[in-house]
């Protein structure tokens, strides 16, 4: 089993400029408008003057137990052993939309062709690319690995990508602990009182219901 790849996101450094989502669109030539492999959401709390906003850059979390993979009827979605990246084989996708419902993060997107497409951690360029691509670990060894466009264009260095082990080295203890509790392959840094906890929040809310 190869080293798992993932994202690192520092909410304190994100200014919500959307450079990441635009860079992603440009690299993968995705449909304009409704297809966003990466998007920036803004969460707010309180009222002026006690008001706080947190920007959150979201894409596929490449979950450890990817719910999209579990419900996909054709096995088109694969959690790769070689690098932990969740890919979609559009040649096997029937465009049923079941993965869109299953994903807690809204990562699966549907283009004009009705087929699912989403972040592949820039395994390759182009819409729907990534399935069958060589392992990101191999690409890195060969020096052919693309730095994800979102990371490349991030103005405030809020985003990073790489083997999870390396990302954890730069993460704070709190972020590392949060990651260990919720293995989504995204390490979320936030020193504010309000911290997006990803799967934890989802799980908690689901349990509450």
């Amino acid at each position, binding site marked *: 089993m190869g080293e798992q790849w993932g994202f690192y996101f520092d909410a304190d450094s994100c200014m919500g400029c959307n450079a990441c989502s635009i860079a992603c669109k440009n690299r993968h030539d995705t449909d304009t408008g409704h297809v966003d492999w990466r998007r920036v959401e803004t969460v*707010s709390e309180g009222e002026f003057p006690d008001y706080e906003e947190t920007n*959150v850059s979201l894409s596929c979390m490449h979950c450890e137990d990817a719910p999209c993979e579990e419900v996909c*009827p054709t096995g088109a979605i694969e959690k790769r052993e070689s690098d932990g990246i969740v890919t979609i084989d559009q040649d*096997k996708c029937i465009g*049923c939309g079941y993965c869109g*419902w299953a994903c807690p993060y809204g990562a699966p997107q549907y283009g004009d062709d009705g087929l699912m497409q989403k972040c592949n951690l820039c395994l390759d360029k182009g819409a729907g690319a990534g399935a069958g691509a060589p392992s990101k670990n191999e690409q890195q060894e060969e020096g052919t690995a693309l730095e994800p466009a979102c990371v490349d264009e991030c103005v405030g260095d809020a985003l990073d990508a790489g083997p999870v082990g390396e990302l954890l080295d730069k993460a704070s203890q709190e972020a590392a602990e949060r990651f260990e509790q919720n293995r989504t392959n995204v390490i979320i840094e936030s020193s504010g009182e*309000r911290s997006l906890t990803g799967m934890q929040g989802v799980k908690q809310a*689901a349990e509450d*219901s």
Partner: protein
Amino acid sequence: MSDAATASEFVWIARGHWEIFIATYLFLGGLSGGAYLTSVVSSELFRPRAEGPAEIFACEETSRWGAVIGVVAIAVGGVALLSHLGAPLRALTFPVLFSNFGSWLVIGTWFIVLFALFVTLEAFWLLFGERHTDFEGLSYFPRRIVVWIDERLPLPDGWSVVAMLDWIADLIRPTGRARLGVHAVGSVTATGVIVYTAMLLTDISVVPLWNRQYLPVIFLMSGASTGISAALLGTVASGGGLSRTNHLFCLADDGLIAVETVTLVGLLGVLASGGPAATQSRELLLSGAYFPHFVVGVLVLGLVVPFLLSMTMTTLARFTDIEETPLGASAFTGGFAAKYFLVLAGGFLLRYVILFGAVKQPLGVP
């Protein structure tokens, strides 16, 4: 689809991956399974006990309507399902392509395939064969269509498609225990189709409205209820509105409606104490955008009114002779038709609000 996503303290997740075609499919899938079950119950339980030509006619019409409606509903539902897919033709290669047997979409597909086989055979046996050559009743309309085509086909003298179908139907028709076995297995697949339409949704753990404990019961009750209503609406149209068969099915339907209503109220109670998405769904249904569809359409017109209408007619039929009068007979026939129509409309709206009232758990910020 973000009418619920107005609160800013959470990251609300987009929904709306399924549109009205899927609501239609979920409705027709349940109705189809229920109509087949109605057909089997009428054939196996009511027909052997039926006395008199009118009662036998009502039983047989109910059986035939149930099977024919079952075929039409699963066929139309299948087309609705395929039409929403991004690659519908690719989906038709499901025997090879659908490899994830842990997905309810795959389990459901096989239930549908098996059920479609059983319900089509049932309709075939009830429409064709030696004893159906002197047919009467509206439910024979598929046979009439085949006869009409047969008369216009340029076949050699002595050739007849209808005669051939009659011969094949009698050749493969099961009798005695074999027939009971076919009905039993067919009923399992029919129930599977009804329940799967709920399991498909409840497998999505991030939508609290799609509750695993409540939704399968609600859909099972609604599927059986709409199946009875569709089949018996046919029987009423055929002139069997005042038959004992219709009365008994109508009462059975009332029981299903009662259980469905109680379970729906239970689901609303669970949603009240759920997380933010559960609360959003509940508000959407009870006071928000889907109030007319849910409260007026599903609860009042689809459940309460049909139940009260049926109870009123049953009481009047039991304790008065009003059903015997010409005016009373017309009123009862119209009343039954109205009840079944309302149940069908409510059943569709139920699927609609369950789909469109679904809200995904937002990303939490503690």
